[in-house]
């Protein structure tokens, strides 16, 4: 009789905790340990004592609320962007650009995965295991003209805003989703080399010299 009650209590306690673990994925280990501990305590003590069992459920609910509030949302992020793009059109056949974004949050937490909206397509940003907090976005174009020169605005979405974006079905709804932040890609344009080659100036200079000499010669001879 006592064993049956313990198992049913365990199930009732653990099932809401499992739901909350999915929401806060990076505090997973901490929460899991807390819940296992409290559920073990409940199963040991609150088997027959209903009041104690109710109190422990309230404590668990409070813990989940606290965990959700101090959650992973990054508030007021600051972006530091280093952008690089191909500048020399004679050295490269196609254009490519790369953005390196360093995100700093006020509460010291990192946003997890970031997604960038480039030319209408939302793609995830790359991260590297050696430098956490740095996000990389790559843009490639088939011709030099396809990569727009000047400043291009790129909207960034984190996990929450990205899931909201995917749920939005109409265009208005997609525009209404608030992005996590916005960065700019600065592409100064490609250069094909100097407009007038130096040979042109050399030819002009020596041509002038020759012309002056020819004029004098014709004066002497003529």
């Amino acid at each position, binding site marked *: 009789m006592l064993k049956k009650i313990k198992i049913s209590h365990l199930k009732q306690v653990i099932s809401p905790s499992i739901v909350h673990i999915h929401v806060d994925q990076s505090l997973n280990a901490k929460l899991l340990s807390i819940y296992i501990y409290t559920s073990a305590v409940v199963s040991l003590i609150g088997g027959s004592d209903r009041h104690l069992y109710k109190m422990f459920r309230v404590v668990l609910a409070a813990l989940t609320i606290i965990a959700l509030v101090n959650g992973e949302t990054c508030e007021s992020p600051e972006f530091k962007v280093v952008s690089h793009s191909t500048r020399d059109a004679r050295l490269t056949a196609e254009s490519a650009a790369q953005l390196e974004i360093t995100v700093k949050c006020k509460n010291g937490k990192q946003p997890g995965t970031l997604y960038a909206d480039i030319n209408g397509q939302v*793609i995830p940003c790359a991260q*590297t295991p050696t430098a956490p907090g740095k996000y990389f976005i790559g843009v490639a174009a088939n011709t030099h003209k396809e990569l727009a020169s000047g400043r291009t605005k790129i909207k960034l979405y984190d996990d929450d805003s990205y899931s909201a974006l995917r749920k939005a079905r109409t265009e208005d709804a997609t525009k209404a989703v608030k992005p996590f932040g916005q960065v700019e890609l600065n592409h100064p344009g490609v250069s094909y080399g100097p407009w007038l080659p*130096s040979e042109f100036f050399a030819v002009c200079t020596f041509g002038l010299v020759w012309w002056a000499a020819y004029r004098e010669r014709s004066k002497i001879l003529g």
Partner: protein
Amino acid sequence: MFSKTALILLAFISVAYSQTDDEESFLFVTKQTVNRFIVQGKELTIKYGLYNSGPTTVFNVNLNDVHSYPSKYYELLVGTLNPKWERINAGTNLTHVVVLKPKESGISNSSHAIVTYQKSEKNTEVQRTYSSEIGDVYIMTGREYDRRFSSHVIDWILFTAMASPCIVFPFFLWFNSKRKYELLASKDKTTKKAQ
């Protein structure tokens, strides 16, 4: 001559194989360079394209190309040779750009990049795939590239400096004699007028 059961068995097998291809996603990785020429001391831009074909998302994608470009021969300017993405949705076409600077010239071989990913979030079985490779490339020295493409202004200035004695010296001689002759001619004129 085939019996009915053998034919039915063949049909089942073929349908089963085609169905497994539909359900699984495969990540195609291409590795290309956008450079026309690879020059020592100039930027080498490499573009990795990742394409998720198939209907499902792939998770925990890790691209490792550190072995192709050792830091002894290449300097990493922009990007990382070891990017990772937590998820790539179905049908997404991603690009990752890395800019390197070759330190030495000659023939160099860059091999495949190794990409590992998981087909599902729960199944931690890691699938390994290789990118396409660029193969053997010739890294030309800075001088060879400059010979064709630099603006040559300094070369022309040097040429002018070396050619100027040939032009300036006879010009100087002519100018002196011209001045003397003109002075003489004007003196003669004034003396004639005076006379």
